């Protein structure tokens, strides 16, 4: 059971109050992109053992989308942050580094 904190309404709740929305920080490739870019945008998702970044929605609450950094192996949640960002904030990265030195995820580390 994950315990997540919604960065918009401040509620700390268990995961049944939220809904997972897949991988975070996916860059959209739409009209004008190449077939392989569009394929990767749609289907090429990472499935790491360890540090992972995901989108979540507080669907039984304020209804906002946010991002969460968590560990798929230990189910530890390193932190949550608003979705209006292109990369994880430094404090989230620092929190992960403290627990998992040398971590990397896609282009972030």
């Amino acid at each position: 059971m994950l315990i997540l904190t919604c960065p918009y309404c401040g509620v700390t709740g268990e995961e049944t109050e939220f809904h997972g929305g897949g991988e975070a920080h996916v860059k959209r490739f739409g009209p004008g992109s190449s077939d392989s870019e569009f394929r990767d945008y749609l289907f090429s998702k990472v499935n790491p053992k360890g540090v992972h970044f995901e989108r979540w929605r507080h669907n039984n609450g304020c209804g906002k989308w946010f991002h969460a950094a968590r560990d798929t192996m230990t189910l530890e949640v390193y932190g949550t942050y608003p979705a209006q960002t292109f990369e994880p904030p430094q404090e989230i990265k620092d929190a992960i580094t403290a627990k998992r030195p040398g971590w990397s995820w896609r282009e972030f580390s």
Partner: protein
Amino acid sequence: MSEAVSALQGASYDGIAQVREIGLQGMITLRGDLGNTALKKAAAAATGQDMPGQRKANVKDDSGIAWMSPDELLILVPYDAVDARLEALGKALAKQHHMAVNVSDARAVFELSGGPVVREVIAKLCPVDMAVGAFGAGDFRRTRMAQVPAAFWMPDENSVRIVCFRSVAQYVFDLLKGAAAPGSAVGYLA
């Protein structure tokens, strides 16, 4: 004119706590920039209550404001006054980007009363810490009640008001009946 009726027409149940559908309650969803002075003033004028902080509700009897999300308020007014308050809100916020909608007939409101045991009744159904100190009078919470979304607040230490969608009113009433069944007190929170 058709006669307005609430979802369960005032159904009630008596167990370790009392469950009652409170009947018609005027409700307005107001969305916009909650930091905006005009919006704060308009919401206060419609209800006679101050703007609540995050996850708080200022409600007195059937008038008040509840904080639903960073850009949404639930405005409670007497049922008969909804149309007039809605018009006043629209006028006051004519120059602001906002949305105000009458949702009175889209929701059902329940009152749970009967002392501190109401905390246990809610705790059986919602993933919320209902301990004294963690949740109390003035707090407002949107969450999940078994399988459906619901929101509630405590007008005082001995009662809870619950808002849910009208389409699931019977389901929520049945849930509350089960959680308040005689002999089902857990004795952990109260």
